[in-house]
């Protein structure tokens, strides 16, 4: 089962190496790992997607929490969350196919960010399934290159507001 784990970590050198090293040393598999700043300059958030049974993921969570500069660990499994991926994708786009490709981009609410004679680069974000679906529909045209961020996520806030 896929778990999205969010770890708030001190913004210090070596923390990423420590987290990545722990995953390697304990033979846990990372699907994706995203690090970025937060509203607090002293803290970064790591969003880690791991696949494993409950026992494995429980260990992942505990071992993460054990790392000294890791401040807080949450497993979002079973909670309503907003999870998003960002992708840049360059698609082969000869002039005769462009109209077709553009309508696909529109359908997926993507954005053209670069364009040449034979290709188009698209920025697209959304849940992982949407990204995967877009890749699939683009495949027949020829994909030149893909860059993805991996998942970031946040629990839905409605409950806490009320």
């Amino acid at each position: 089962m896929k778990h999205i784990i969010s770890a708030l970590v001190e913004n210090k050198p070596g923390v990423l190496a420590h987290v990545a090293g722990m995953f390697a040393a304990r033979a846990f598999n990372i699907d994706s790992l995203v690090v970025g700043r937060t509203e607090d300059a002293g803290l970064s958030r790591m969003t880690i997607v791991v696949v494993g049974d409950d026992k494995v993921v429980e260990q992942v969570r505990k071992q993460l929490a054990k790392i000294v500069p890791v401040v807080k660990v949450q497993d979002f499994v079973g909670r309503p969350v907003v999870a998003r991926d960002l992708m840049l994708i360059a698609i082969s786009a000869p002039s005769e196919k462009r109209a077709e490709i553009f309508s696909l981009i529109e359908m997926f609410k993507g954005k053209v960010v670069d364009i040449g004679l034979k290709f188009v680069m698209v920025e697209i974000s959304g849940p992982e399934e949407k990204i995967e679906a877009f890749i699939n529909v683009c495949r027949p045209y020829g994909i030149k290159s893909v860059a993805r961020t991996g998942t970031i996520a946040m629990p839905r806030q409605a409950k806490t507001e009320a």
Partner: protein
Amino acid sequence: MSSTSRSSATPADQSSLKTGAQIIVDALIEQGVETMFGYIGGVVLPLFDRLYDSPINFIVPRHEQGGCHMADGYARASGKVGVVVTTSGPGACNLVTGLANAMMDSVPLVALTGQVRTELIGNDAFQEADTTGITRPVTKYNCIVKDVNDLGHTIREAFHIASTGRPGPVLVDIPVDVEVAKCRADASADMKLPGYKVRTGGHSRQILTAAKEINKSQRPVLYVGGGVIAANASEQLRTLAEKAHLPVTMTLLALGSYDQNKDESLDMLGMHGSAYANYAVQECDLLIAVGARFDDRVTGKVKTFAPKSKIIHIDIDPSSISKNVHVDIPVVGDAKAILSELVKYVEYRERKNWFKKIADWKRKFPFRYDNNSSVIKPQYVIEELYRQQPGAIITTGVGQNQMWAAQFYKFSTPRRFISSGGLGTMGFGLPAAIGAQVAMPSETVIDIDGDHSFNMTMTELRTAVENELPIKVCILNNDYMGMVRQWQQLFYNKRYSKTHLSNPDYAVVAEALGAVGITVDKKQDVPGAIKKMLDTKKPCVVDFRVEPEENVWPMVPAGASLNEMDGLDILESMA
């Protein structure tokens, strides 16, 4: 002063400025450090210059690994934080085994390593190594201090992290320019550890549930690990065992946490544990694990471990809970606090049948050996040593010597048995004995060692001589890497691949290093040699030429269940 140093002060208050080296020494003294171990080198010159007239007792090993094991032995014997300091590059790299050893056995250490100048880091400078990168997996925490203003609080944090929670080694890497840089002395007072929380007492409802299970249990076993010693909770453990009337088995690292001379003691469990402990664990209806981590050498085949029992697990490390074995009632927190609380709710139960069963196993399968041959049996040396000098601090090498020491020397108080458990580091015994002797100058400290283990760090004998530390070393010399030879005999058709080496004359080596050396090759000379050794005021090495192919029994083969012990027929035949 180096050009890269950072000064936070104006020239006006130069007098209140301290160098990084001075801040380190002051912080060590503030932490109560009386003794440290370490080896000088280029980038720690400023620090060692400050240590030159500091009141801290300083022991210089012959190799940094030895220094790290000394700090480890010191910490285990005293309960204080061990401190080791080395230079950059090779000095720091030589700490790795010692740090990994302390990490596996949860020993509080602080390692300070010098580093090349900040501006050279990453340039492959002379004696540069990525020390924090190399030691990250073998430390509880490590960091590099690049600003002298961070030095004071970082060292305080290091001691705090090393000694609280589940203890462990912490390494602080300090570039040489930070040692000479100056800053205001009080600039770095507070610790900054937002991600580090120390757990104390356990959840009260969990403790009540645990007590109920204990009171209900017909066939309970207390399974005690090194965490009880780390938490200084032996007294609370004894009270619990007595009040609730529970049999107690200990891991290798927990020996001494419960008095082995008591009837309720089942001694050590696991691969070379007692048959009665292993049977009791397999038959029990409730296993109460305290400060133990269900190591594979303890559980044997995990799937069939304690198959009839519910499991209570008291541990300060949440990641130890249900890591290897599913736990029914976890209680996370400090063993001392939890046991003190738990004791209030447990009630005495006679459990006559259970204790009778245990007594039968104890009678049938005690630790035994055949002492009828004329050759010296290694177990006999340990028994005789225990007869003449009970209550000593015993350190060990790793392998057969270690298992026999655990089986045949009986411990009644904690911090008397000092051994490399998790990592199994050969060569640990001698430097650990030196560290223990430094911590406990009036105690008798004896390293029960193997020839191959002793070979690995024997130059440290000179450290003992130089510092007038009267440690004793009993080498159970079977001319083999004994435990591995035992496996080759049992599982590799006696093909003794690379387990036999040519050993030196250890008595001559000892004398050359300034210690007393004794060789014993006749059984009748064993008691006299041990007496002579114990009477010697200097470091003393006794080379016991023991039966070369003696085996450790019982033995749970790798992958077998705890009750599937080999060698029980051999033990029975000696009755």
